[in-house]
């Protein structure tokens, strides 16, 4: 899959789950990675388009390494990526991270409060580290 001749990019597949604040955090963190932390190394896969059969999204996720970012342990992004393209190189679950970090209750899923924004920033940092790891493995 990771041919030497391919330009090195990592696809980020994020859930945007409306059901919980962690879905919003997933979305914001992914956008931060795409816009600020690793803009030249990452590509975002639009999950709804991916699910609806988007050819470009599915082919990219098949041919390039991906990192899935899920809000909760239903892991919709991971399940979809495995089903329609290929096993992701790495998977992140926000609820698992917030539990490990001992995060306080994170408030509204519509508009992130300061604590939730800080968590999104921290998650973005974690995603960026995973991107670097994946690229290092791409020999």
């Amino acid at each position, binding site marked *: 899959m990771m041919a030497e001749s391919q330009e090195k*990019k990592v*696809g980020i597949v994020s859930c945007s789950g409306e059901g919980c604040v962690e879905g919003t955090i997933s979305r914001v963190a992914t956008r931060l990675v*795409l816009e600020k932390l690793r*803009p*030249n190394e990452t*590509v*975002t*896969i*639009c999950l709804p*388009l991916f699910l609806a059969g988007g050819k*470009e*999204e599915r*082919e*990219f996720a098949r041919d390039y390494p991906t990192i899935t970012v899920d809000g909760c342990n239903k892991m919709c992004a991971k399940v979809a990526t495995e089903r329609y393209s290929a096993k992701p190189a790495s998977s992140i679950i926000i609820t698992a991270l917030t539990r490990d970090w001992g995060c306080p209750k994170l408030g509204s899923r519509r508009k992130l409060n300061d604590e939730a924004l800080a968590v999104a920033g921290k998650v973005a940092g974690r995603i960026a580290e995973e991107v670097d790891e994946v690229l290092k493995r791409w020999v």
Partner: protein
Amino acid sequence: MSEHFRTTFDKFELRVRKGCYYTRDDLWVSVENGKVRIGVSDYLQKTSGDVAFVEVAKPGSKVEQGKEFGTIESAKTTVALFSPVSGKIDEANGKLDRKPELVNSDPFGEGWLVVITPLNLDDDLRLLVNSEDYYKLMLQKLQSEHGKLESR
């Protein structure tokens, strides 16, 4: 043999239809029985985003090579369209009033913009590029200009 040159940038496939001429600002020109049909290239529609409005000069209007004859507008940008030839507009694509998204979904087909009867076709074509040269130009633009293309 494929009808298009193709390349992939990030996750996007970008096509250049063979057999057309192109302007350096990303319009395609198809010569059809002495008239020219004009549209936006795959590269331009992709970089412009979801086209919400298409405005072009009305049929009967005179146009001049290199001068503005219309615009396409998305939520993120407005792009001026400069005529590749001098002449008179015969037809404007009426479908684009209700379905401007055709410019994005089918830029070389149903998303065409106008048909023009040219005044000096041979002279005007000399200032355009062929599909192979436009393909190379597009690759250069991708390398130098673009961070992220909007997701489609």
